[in-house]
């Protein structure tokens, strides 16, 4: 089996760290740029292996939450229509979706989710109401996925950023 994408990224990073960075130890700004590249490569190495499956799982859950949000009491008609349109536009066709397609769908879903969260908060404050089960489900989903989203960043984020 030939080297995988993470193997290739790791090899580039090792070359930079072993052969290039030591030559610039006294040039702060140049060394800093190389360290930034190394941190980004570490992130890429972890991201390419997990991005597709993570987006796929997140999109499924977001589709469920947004489907519920579109029918929630008080939700703005425009938001409900946008949710329906997005869910239709990004419906899986059964094929293996490219990561870029998954990411575009995820961005659209996250944008709609943001709009729902902001709208629901405004409604609650205006009515002095408490959080709904859907509000809690969305919050729980976001808190639960935060460590998963951070995982491909964690190793890189611990490296010198400058």
């Amino acid at each position: 089996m030939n080297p995988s994408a993470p193997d290739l990224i790791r090899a580039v990073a090792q070359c930079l760290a072993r052969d290039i960075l030591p030559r610039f130890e006294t040039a702060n700004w140049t060394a800093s740029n190389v360290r930034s590249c190394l941190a980004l490569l570490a992130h890429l190495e972890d991201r390419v292996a997990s991005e597709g499956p993570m987006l796929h799982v997140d999109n499924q859950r977001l589709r469920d939450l947004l489907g519920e949000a579109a029918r929630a009491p008080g939700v703005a008609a425009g938001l409900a229509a946008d949710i329906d349109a997005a869910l239709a536009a990004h419906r899986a066709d059964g094929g293996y979706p490219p990561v870029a397609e998954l990411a575009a769908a995820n961005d659209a879903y996250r944008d709609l989710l943001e709009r729902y969260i902001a709208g629901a908060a405004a409604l609650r404050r205006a009515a002095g109401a408490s959080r709904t089960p859907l509000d809690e489900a969305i919050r729980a989903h976001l808190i639960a996925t935060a460590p998963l989203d951070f995982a491909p960043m964690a190793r890189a984020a611990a490296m010198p950023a400058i």
Partner: protein
Amino acid sequence: MPDLTIPEVADYLGRHLGAPVSITSLRKTFPGISRETWLVQAEFSGAPHGFVVRVDPPGGPSVPQPLRQEWEVYRRLWTSPVPVAEPLWFDEGGDFAQGRPLMVRRLVEGTTSPPGITDEGPGSGERRRRVVYEHIEKLALVHQLDWKAHGLDAVLAAPDGPHDALAAEFRMWKSIWEDGRTAPYPLITEALDWLEENLPTDTPRLSLVKGNNGIGEEIWRDDRIVAMSDWELASIGDGVIDLAFSQGTLELHDFDDAIAHYERCMGETVSPQRLAFAAFWIPFKVIVCLNVFRLRRFMAGQDQRISALTHGLLSTAGCEYRLSTGIGRDIVEAWRSGPRQNQSVYAALGDAK
């Protein structure tokens, strides 16, 4: 974009000072991302002089506030009890440094960190206590300053009153975020909802707030702060913001004792609600700076520095994760049970004086 060169700096300073200037050394500080800081040693009129040229990066600063505002804060503080380097002039739009906004101030001898402050040895703990107390006392000086008397409300927006201090800050930064973020961030939207539910209203007074402060920010000499530097995030509001933005300085000593000393200096208590809110608020402000003012500019081709990506993606992710640990919980309990700020979230910007 080329760095500044000795001939052009000599020519520029000479024109401003009205006398030929000879540059003996010119160095861009490292780190220093939000704005470029150039240390200049020069000779003119037969005497040595040190200058600091602070200039916006080619792609713009990493903060919302323009350099002119920072300059105006310096100018007003120079005549106040708060120690700052002498501001000399502000300039922009000329033929020097591609017309980027810049300010020149006099160089203050010292370092941005007391040398060996984290070393262990006899008396090292007591030394760190003294350094933390020194920092607290200078922050208290800032927070007790009569900002109206020094005209700071002419350049910094003042909230309606102490009760509105943190709410005004919340509204301003939330607005910048919503207008400028690079992508949807539902977790941050949720965090903002949670923070808004927990907005303290018990701010005892409106203070001048420095913004990022502490080790790595101020100029230290013999374990004393001789100049408070980098006022890029200065505002009028609740001083508790500074306690949470001290780059880990307060944790060099016992944090609770540091706060107790601050309370003694100020003659007023700091509620746990304010401390907890500020501790979760600062990561959000850092996210705004890194995303809106670094990552967005990189994506637009305005800032080509690779660190815009490391900060805009990786450092932001760390702050976002920190926020996620509090959402929905009692904010004081979440703050007390979470990791204390033993290193700066803002230091990722690598500012330097």
